[in-house]
């Protein structure tokens, strides 16, 4: 449970550690995939700051909903690393008992209401989660992440309209990493801006540097305050970049330039946070090293746990289809 309200040493260090953990997790997940233990992952390396800056502000009872590319959302929301890694390997000890896998990790205890493999599909669901909070009279918020590609789905527009007329406590967060598979954002999004669409639905639309956890934090803080106060939804377009291929196997240089990659990697969210921590005296080099080692140790432990866990019992094939079925 993060639940920070201000940028303090504690919250900033939490963000740094979270981003490092995500990156280390994804590096290991890629190794697992390369070893054939799972078919592949949609790596979130490069995009760590987006959910981190937002989730720093969220409580366990706030909700996050994700996409096919959601390991970073899960980790930022506090999902257990061991159970996540076990899920990737399809093990019985996984968050989803091995039934969901990389595109569907969920942990309701932590308010992670699931990744979702259908592009755009979780946006209405998140809107309903916000509705639930409103009807139950809580001040919980619901945050849904989706890609630039997903912004073309009608579900976003239906949901923005619904959330706006009902003043629902939801944040629509577009992780604009410039590509949907190989399709550039400039080609697929008319007008070249997702945030601009908000105006048509009478809600704020904000563009933010998604490679800066600090900026994400500030923007999210305002949106969350609005949501908790019953003032309705916000659309946030976080400009970010995925460093790897879409799902691993593809070579991104088939559809984007080295210059572009260099530009974004030069603005890497972890590097910039390191500079901030060191410059501001919030941490020393050895503090940072310790954090990285802690992350590596946690990932190693998670990997061991996953490896040693059993596969689901064959009977699990047909359980959990229903809560009850005579």
């Amino acid at each position, binding site marked *: 449970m993060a639940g920070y309200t201000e940028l303090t040493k504690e919250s900033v260090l939490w963000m740094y550690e979270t981003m490092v953990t995500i990156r280390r997790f994804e590096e290991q997940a890629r190794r697992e995939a390369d070893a054939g233990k799972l078919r592949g992952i949609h790596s979130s390396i490069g995009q760590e700051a987006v959910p981190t800056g937002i989730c720093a502000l969220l409580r366990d009872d706030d909700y996050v909903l994700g996409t096919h590319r959601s390991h970073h959302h899960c980790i930022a929301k506090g999902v257990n690393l061991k159970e996540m890694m076990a899920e990737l390997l399809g093990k019985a000890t996984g968050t989803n008992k*091995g039934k969901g896998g990389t595109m569907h990790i969920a942990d309701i205890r932590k308010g992670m209401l699931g990744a979702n493999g259908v592009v755009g599909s979780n946006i209405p669901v998140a809107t309903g989660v916000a509705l639930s909070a409103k009807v139950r009279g809580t001040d919980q918020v619901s945050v849904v992440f989706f890609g630039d590609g997903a912004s073309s789905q009608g579900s976003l527009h239906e949901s923005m309209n619904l959330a706006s007329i009902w003043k629902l406590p939801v944040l629509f967060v577009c992780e604009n990493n410039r590509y949907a598979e190989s399709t550039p954002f400039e080609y697929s999004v008319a007008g070249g801006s997702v945030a601009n669409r908000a105006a048509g639905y009478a809600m704020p639309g904000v563009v933010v540097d998604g490679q800066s956890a600090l900026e994400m934090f500030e923007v999210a803080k305002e949106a969350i305050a609005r949501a908790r106060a019953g003032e309705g939804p916000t659309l946030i377009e976080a400009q970010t970049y995925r460093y790897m291929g879409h799902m691993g196997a593809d070579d991104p240089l088939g559809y984007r330039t080295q210059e572009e990659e260099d530009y974004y990697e030069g603005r890497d969210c972890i590097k910039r946070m390191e500079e901030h921590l060191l410059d501001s005296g919030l941490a020393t080099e050895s503090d940072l090293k310790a954090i990285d080692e802690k992350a590596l140790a946690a990932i190693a432990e998670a990997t061991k746990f996953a490896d040693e866990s059993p596969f689901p019992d064959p009977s699990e094939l047909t359980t959990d289809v229903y809560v009850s079925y005579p």
Partner: protein
Amino acid sequence: MVQTQGVRQLSYIQAVNEALRLEMRRDSTVIIMGEDIAGGGERDDFQDAWGGPMRLTKGLVGEFGRERIRDTPIAESGFMGAGVGAAATGLRPIVDLMYVGFLGVCGDQILNNASKIHYMFGGKVNVPLTIMTGTGAGTNSAAQHSETVYSVFTHYPGLKVVVPSNPYNVKGLYAAAIRDDDPVIICNNRQLMGVRFDVDVPEGDYTIPIGKADIAREGTDVTLVGMSYTTRVCLQAAQELEALGYSAEVVDLLSLSPMDDEAILESVRKTRKIVIVDEDYPRCSIASDVAALVAEQAFDYLDAPPKRVNPPHTLVPYSMPLEALFVPTKEQVVAAALEVMQ
């Protein structure tokens, strides 16, 4: 409606309305969403201007307010998805999908999310969503507004599907569906709405178990399997068959998923002949499914091939005389029954 001594007669519409009202009183987490289910948007002067396409929700907003009775924009994918999300986080939403043909517009939320979340999340999240939808032809509404397609929902693991046939069972099945922890789709046949039934509808709340068929009429010579509107057709055919000297048993399925296989098999083991009457398109239909079931599991009991009565492999035409040829009729059922009885 005339109240026979000791019999509380309600229309199908009234029974649904009563079930909704009782469940909403019982459980404050029950909410309803849909187009014009109250009507008038949020204008206080025009509250309850509509009450749903079939007036199933008429009057509820007065008792439960706009927070729980929610008119939606025309955005089925948006509000069906909202139902899924609300169901996963503490509410028991009922979503009105006006006509089942609009499944096309919000299929993703029903078929990819509602049906799969519980499984994909390892059983750790429930989706107690109830979907109510209008089905069936016979109203001069043409191909898009006259479908039945309950077989499609039945096809998908993770969904439950109920097909009430009269005011008594629709009231009990609504209560059961709303209290159920799985997503349940209730198919309300539009031709049943205005019909008079001689069944008693108790005033208080009660449930009818999902997954249990009802022997709507006992008989020994042939089994007629009906569901929703076709149960009515089967009962009429049974009466006519009686006049011809045959005793027909009518199995009213009530639930399609789970389906009460045993009730069907038991009846067939007794009568040794079966006619399945289904208003849905014929290919991959409930009728096919039941025929396959009895062929596989009661093969040695069958005196004649299982017989399916469906519309032909065609769409629902607008023209009324043509449309009348689409929906299975009493005459077709009688003829089919006579055929399997030689």
